[in-house]
């Protein structure tokens, strides 16, 4: 099986419009890119289009790709920029500040027991999905950039245009909020399974 590096070379040398080598790269990376777009944007409806745009951009930028990093890392950079632009451009969604009491107070945790039981019935992936979707952008985006993408704190700070300490704080709060929700759902599930 060809390496990503070989496929990139093949894609670069292919005549315009011949996407066979690039198709292989898409196949290898599509699930991860799609997951990133899904959780960075917080929008399952837009994730497919975002991921599609990321690969189209990557195709046309391939000539400039010098191979100093892995293809996946390079695509990640395109994806982060694209998804952050999408988030910035999304007017309808309420932007929540990190200091907003709504964030620090974790209002989403105050779900009805029924809602939590419903969450518990879902499989793990669906549970993670729902927990992440319920997090505000200010916590979810840096958390995804760190724990899904594995980006360094400084890189995240540069991308988001906020200070390093603010990024660390957001990620810390994001992780705490995530774990609290997860534990509550687990506890709710145990209570449902053992009603006495």
């Amino acid at each position: 099986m060809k390496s990503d590096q070989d496929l990139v070379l093949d894609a670069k040398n292919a005549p315009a419009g011949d996407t066979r080598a690039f198709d292989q790269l898409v196949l290898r990376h599509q699930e991860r890119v799609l997951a990133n777009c899904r959780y960075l944007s917080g929008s399952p409806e837009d994730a497919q289009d975002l991921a599609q745009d990321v690969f189209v951009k990557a195709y046309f930028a391939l000539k400039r790709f010098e191979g100093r990093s892995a293809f996946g890392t390079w695509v990640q950079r395109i994806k982060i920029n694209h998804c952050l632009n999408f988030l910035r451009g999304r007017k309808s969604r309420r932007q929540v500040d990190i200091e907003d009491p709504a964030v620090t107070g974790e209002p989403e945790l105050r779900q009805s027991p029924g809602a939590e039981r419903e969450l518990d019935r879902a499989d793990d992936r669906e549970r993670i999905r729902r927990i992440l979707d319920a997090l505000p952008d200010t916590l979810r985006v840096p958390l995804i950039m760190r724990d899904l993408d594995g980006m360094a704190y400084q890189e995240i700070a540069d991308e988001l245009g906020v200070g390093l300490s603010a990024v660390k704080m957001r990620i810390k709060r994001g992780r705490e909020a995530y774990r609290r929700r997860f534990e509550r759902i687990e506890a709710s599930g145990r209570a449902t399974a053992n009603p006495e």
Partner: protein
Amino acid sequence: MSGDDRHSEEGDPAGEPIAELALLREQPRSDFGRRIRNSIQRRIAAADCLDFSLMALFETFLGYLTALLQAVDRRPSGGGKGDR
């Protein structure tokens, strides 16, 4: 930005990473690849059209310019030194 980088910051100041997030994957729609290919082909076609239009415009302009210069060159002048 690899797994190495993930572990490079010893004693993560923001707490322990959520391991399951690194494994998240999403299944694309069945026509995901086809849509990407179509989008690429559309953009290539649009770029070709633009190239062709610009080239045609340039060629037309060049044709007019050449004709104009020839017309000026052929025009009889007042009999100056350069009129030989």
